[in-house]
């Protein structure tokens, strides 16, 4: 009890401090300050961005980015207009792509079974499963041709044609969309936050039918809410088939109910199990979503909950299921799967008979828990400021989160306008994630992306295949997560490939990097968005080739930071 009171007291103090502290946006920012702001609120400065922000002023730029709906982004829409699937419902995706591909797979299976199949020794299930694991279904997918070259002959025979290939190409549009937006959208902070929140509420495309749910998940659940209210976002995620399937809640049922023969033998089992459960095995409570809701989505692992709470939360969410996932169905509350008895969650009583409201009540409890404010504030500050974010800033952001009832725009604003954010020590302190590295390289060089498919493959090679992060933790957000020998070499190779045009479908106009009116160091400086260090400048001074200059700039240690 005392601990809670002390916590409440210190939070109250922090709130006061936040009110009294003026925003710390510099009035006459130098180039380094502006570039710092750009590197954190966007996927890196483009040529001309520095001057544009200087003209607008930092405060106004931040405010504009916090209100993406007010920023025109017509060119972005035009770029995406060629993708047919982006406006589709999951049901449409299922009917047009997923189900035909599944039927084709089955037909092959039957064909093989009749032929005895000793040639390749492959079963379609296995091929499908491998495809899911290795190919990066929705994200890194798409690029069939180049990948085939890398595949050993044993696997090459299994290349899908027809419906299976169409499915893969369709699902790769999601990844292309994400990458193109990161590079070209004017609503850059919004894109950074889409990445942040998708990753916070991570779902893995390689888990069965989840691959067709990701489009609506990102488009309808995450994207519209990244600057909205946390409870609203949490609720939308909780009802999303993508999350319900990924963390198995869709099949979580009151064990008591499941044991009654009339109940789940027939109907409750059906919503989309990949293989029918074995006879005599009742479906029961599944704690996966409940655990990750507490550990990863809200309170954090040390947020003050016990295993008992996990079970109670799981009981509250029984019956939150999906109507026929194999056909792209929607969220459904199934009272017959629901445990309608009383629950006690984090010390709060949820009375019996609440039905679907039980889950909503849990979301209310966890969304307003002090640990949640702190956990979200810490993660946001880590993303925008430093791997080990300044505690005072985390305190203020958490306080702002609480006093605004979880207003994400205001929480982010608190961070972006803080003295800690503009502290020179924060500059170039973060190592870019692979997505940030790739997008910033394209932005810095003014690259024209004809096809984003090669970039999706690059992201896979760099260790960050889009939508293919398997654990619900999402990708890490510290230097430690991204700096390793193989990935670093791949970054240099990406830089080389982008510079010499061998990535395919991506053009960089090298003329603008010709040594002439400006010298190597200043060309590199404009690409890196910071003055290259003495040794890097010395290395660059030895090269006159624009392609090499671009490669050595993008692959330099300086460019790996933001």
């Amino acid at each position, binding site marked *: 009890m005392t601990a809670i009171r002390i916590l409440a007291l210190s939070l109250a103090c922090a709130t006061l401090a936040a009110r009294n502290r003026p925003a710390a946006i510099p009035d006459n920012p130098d180039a380094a300050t502006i570039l710092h702001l750009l590197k954190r609120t966007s996927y890196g400065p483009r040529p001309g961005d520095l001057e544009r922000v200087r003209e607008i002023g930092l405060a106004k730029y931040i405010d504009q980015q916090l209100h993406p709906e007010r920023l025109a982004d017509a060119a972005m829409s035009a770029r995406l207009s060629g993708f047919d699937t982006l406006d589709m419902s999951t049901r449409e995706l299922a009917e047009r792509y997923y189900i035909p591909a599944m039927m084709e797979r089955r037909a092959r299976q039957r064909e093989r079974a009749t032929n005895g199949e000793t040639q390749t020794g492959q079963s379609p299930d296995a091929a499908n499963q491998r495809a899911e694991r290795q190919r990066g279904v929705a994200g890194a997918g798409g690029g069939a041709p180049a990948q085939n070259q890398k595949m050993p002959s044993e696997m090459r025979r299994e290349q899908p044609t027809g419906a299976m290939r169409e499915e893969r190409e369709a699902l790769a549009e999601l990844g292309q969309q994400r990458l193109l937006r990161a590079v070209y959208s004017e609503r850059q902070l919004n894109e950074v936050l889409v990445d942040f929140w998708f990753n916070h509420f991570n779902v893995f495309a390689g888990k069965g039918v989840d691959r067709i749910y990701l489009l609506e998940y990102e488009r309808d659940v995450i994207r519209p809410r990244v600057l909205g209210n946390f409870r609203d976002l949490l609720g939308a995620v909780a009802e999303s088939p993508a999350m319900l399937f990924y963390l198995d809640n869709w099949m979580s049922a009151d064990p008591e109910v499941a044991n009654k023969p009339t109940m789940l033998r027939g109907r409750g089992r059906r919503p989309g199990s990949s*293989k029918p459960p074995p006879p005599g095995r009742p479906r029961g409570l599944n704690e996966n979503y409940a655990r*990750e809701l507490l550990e990863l989505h809200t309170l954090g692992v040390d947020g003050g909950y016990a295993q008992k709470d996990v079970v109670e939360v799981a009981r509250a969410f029984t019956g939150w299921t999906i109507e026929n996932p194999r056909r792209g169905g929607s969220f459904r509350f199934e009272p017959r799967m629901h445990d309608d008895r009383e629950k006690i969650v984090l010390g709060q009583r949820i009375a019996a008979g609440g039905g679907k409201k039980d889950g909503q009540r849990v979301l209310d409890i966890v969304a307003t828990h002090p640990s949640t404010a702190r956990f979200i504030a810490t993660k946001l500050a880590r993303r925008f400021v430093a791997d080990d974010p300044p505690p005072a800033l985390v305190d203020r952001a958490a306080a702002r989160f609480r006093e605004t009832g979880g207003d994400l725009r205001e929480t982010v604003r608190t961070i972006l306008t803080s003295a800690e954010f503009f502290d020179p020590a924060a500059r170039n302190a973060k190592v870019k994630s692979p997505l940030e590295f790739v997008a910033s390289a394209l932005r810095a060089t003014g690259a024209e992306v004809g096809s984003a498919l090669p970039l999706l493959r690059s992201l896979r090679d760099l260790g960050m295949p889009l939508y293919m992060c398997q*654990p619900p933790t999402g990708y890490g957000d510290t230097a430690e997560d991204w700096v390793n020998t*193989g990935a670093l070499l791949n970054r*240099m190779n990406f830089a080389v490939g982008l510079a010499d045009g*061998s990535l395919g479908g991506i053009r960089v106009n090298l003329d603008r990097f010709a040594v002439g009116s400006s010298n190597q160091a200043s060309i590199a400086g404009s690409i890196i968005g910071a003055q290259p*260090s003495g040794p890097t400048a010395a290395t660059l001074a030895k090269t006159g080739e624009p392609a*090499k200059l671009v490669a050595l700039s993008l692959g330099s240690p300086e460019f790996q930071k933001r």
Partner: protein
Amino acid sequence: MISRRVFVKNGGLALVSLGFAPAFLARAAEAAGGRRRILVAIFQRGAVDGLNMIVPHGERAYYAARPTIAVQRPGTAVDAAVDLDGFFGLHPRMAPLKPLFDRRELAIVHATGSPDSTRSHFDAQDYMESATPGVKSTRDGWLNRCLHAREHQNATPFRAVALAPQLPRALQGTAQALAIGRLNQFGIRERGANAGVSPSFESEYAAAADRVLKETGSEAFEAIRMLKNADPSRYRPANGAQYPRSAFAEALRQIAQLVKADVGLEVAFAETGNWDHHVNEGASTGQLAFRLDDFARGIAAFTADLGERMADVLVLTMSEFGRAVAENGNRGTDHGHGNAMIAIGAGVRGGRIYGDWPGLDPQKRFEGRDLAVTTDFRDVFAEVAVRHLGIADPSPVFPGFRVSQTRFRGFLAAS
């Protein structure tokens, strides 16, 4: 003491051509720091049918449950099981591994698996690679945690290598691990205008202000040099080893190259797929037989190729779960529970099948249908971590699991 790292940096490795390492160099390396023990983990993705791989031919229930796909009792048919101990036998396509069993270099742990009952490939592989059954949010893999548990000064960039396009879950984590598709493509791709760009990158990183980037960069270029000196394109397997032509065998061949190149390998990972035979699995011939043929010949070639270096190397095979005891309506098998793991090489007390055999009678099956699990797969992993990798305190490798040597099956000699 001269560390091998220094030794290598001073050019010793320049003389070591893969497969042609002069004996004195190997001895020198050994003297300089001792050859490290190496674990080669092999994942059979898709859930191999362990009951047809390591056949319980002494079980009447096995034959009753599998009228069309059972492997026949040894001596009763042309292509029957290869007997091991009078009760278990190898699938006939696994025969290439029989000599290893006879030489007591190969042990089997049967009826091993997860305490979690999931029959989802995705979840079960996740649980096995993180070694935290039932817990999805474990960020790193158990092999990565093994690396942390045996940090040492002589670590090289090739400490942990997956011969795969992507780092498998088991090796993901904060300890350095490499995913290499093909050894001879490792490095900076210099072409055209970018010819000669590699040394420039190297000098950039040598002078990097960021300590982690500087160190990692120098490791990366050191790794390139090490591999270049080892000259993988000239590799010739030793002792007449014949690797089958498959992606899996190719991965093993490259692991053998790395072992012999003395580049500091400690943990290697290879995977083999297409074990999910719901339809027309086959018995002595057919789909499963075809896959086992590649699997066994690949491993047999690997052990032959390594020859005496197998004294340092332990091969451990695993698969996410087993398959149902009874065949289904399509002459295949559905997802099951317990399975068999195979250990070959260093320290193995081979020629035996370990574990308590639960029996296959319907009432002895898990949930009435599957081979029950009598050895938690983490007890197998832990035995490897402690007895092979020399990890004194394995508890950080297995969070949420109390490792107890009393539960070790003893397939490895206590060193």
